[in-house]
């Protein structure tokens, strides 16, 4: 939607005359970052130019009087502004577009939790604390970020408390198995005694 190709002058303005002649594969990380930053800024400006033109044309053909055409992308809403050419704002209706793809299909051996409870129930576990960045067709300089637990509607404090409880979970399982074993033996003894009593009654 807003693909940008930098010309020689643009590269010289960032890298200087000498380095601008060097092939891209020989740039340093710093140089790559600066070029990428310029591309993002140019793409954003180009996108806004196109958007102003599109929304202006769209407003002319909208049948409803006073209706405002908007563009939704990456969890943001764009509309023609009063002072700035484009105003960006958040709206509940745009929220579903903040995370368009949630279900990558994976084999069972890669599934979350296959390595144990703490794969999810521990601090920093990606299933709850992974950060989702909304990526729409519009080139965003400040894309919307959400932690997974926010999107899932979970309370952070509650998650931390659950994580804490899972630290003792393996020991609890052993304790519970031993406990159940003791009770099972007592129940077995009771049933055998009961059976013995019943046989005694029959014999009488």
């Amino acid at each position: 939607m807003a693909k940008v190709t930098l010309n020689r002058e643009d590269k010289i303005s960032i890298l200087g005359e000498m380095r601008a002649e060097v092939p891209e594969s020989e740039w340093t990380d710093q140089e790559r970052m600066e070029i990428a930053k310029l591309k993002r800024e140019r793409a954003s400006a180009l996108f806004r130019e196109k958007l102003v033109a599109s929304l202006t044309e769209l407003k002319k053909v909208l049948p409803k009087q006073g209706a405002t055409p908007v563009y939704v992308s990456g969890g943001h809403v764009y509309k023609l502004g009063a002072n700035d050419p484009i105003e960006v704002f958040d709206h509940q209706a745009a929220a579903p577009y903040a995370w368009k793809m949630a279900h990558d299909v994976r084999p069972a051996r890669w599934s979350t939790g296959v390595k144990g409870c703490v794969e999810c129930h521990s601090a920093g576990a990606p299933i709850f604390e992974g950060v989702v960045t909304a990526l729409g067709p519009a080139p965003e300089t400040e894309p919307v970020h959400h932690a997974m637990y926010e999107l899932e509607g979970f309370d952070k404090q509650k998650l931390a408390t659950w994580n804490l409880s899972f630290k003792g979970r393996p020991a609890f399982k052993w304790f519970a198995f031993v406990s159940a074993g003791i009770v099972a033996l007592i129940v077995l003894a009771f049933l055998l005694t009961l059976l013995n009593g019943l046989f005694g009654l029959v014999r009488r």
Partner: protein
Amino acid sequence: MTHIANPSPEQFMLHPNAWFPRILLVALVAAAIVIVLYLMLVLVARPPRMRRKKWSWWETLVYLATLLTISILGTTSFFTVLRYGGMHGWWLFAHMCGAGAFVGMLPLLALTWFRVNRFGAHADGAVNPMSEYGPRFFWLPKFTFWLIVIGGLAACVSMLPSMLPLFGTDTLRQLLAIHRYSGLLVVVAALLHFYSILLQRAGLR
């Protein structure tokens, strides 16, 4: 397994969890009716009062602690099932904490009380001793004691494998159904047990 809101009676075995809220209400109402009817029966028939041995501090402590854990588990589960349709959030956390305590209390309860709760057992737990005291309990507390122990064991054993990566969704749902119904059995049995102990304390049995 498909979740359905209103299964027909013929579908009970297929959807036991969907039936649980209704069966829970029926069980609690039935327990209340049994309590009232049995009280009326006792008041009319007036069975002879027996001299029973007093409980030691340890026996009392174990019994009350078990009742407390069952109350926590019953409240956190049944209230949320009836009010919200399921157990979530802090209710689930409280239920899990109560479950940890119950798992610890159940063997203590069984070890402390099993001798005197055998049918035919007298004051000190032996069968037919020469004792000045009568049996520690009449038939109702003995019967409900074993329901608590057996139901409690089923409730524990049905949840333990659910914490291990052994079963798929369908089996986990079936284990949850066993857990729910055995938990209901424990709560109703504990209610009747506590009631029968009150009857004994009041000298009505």
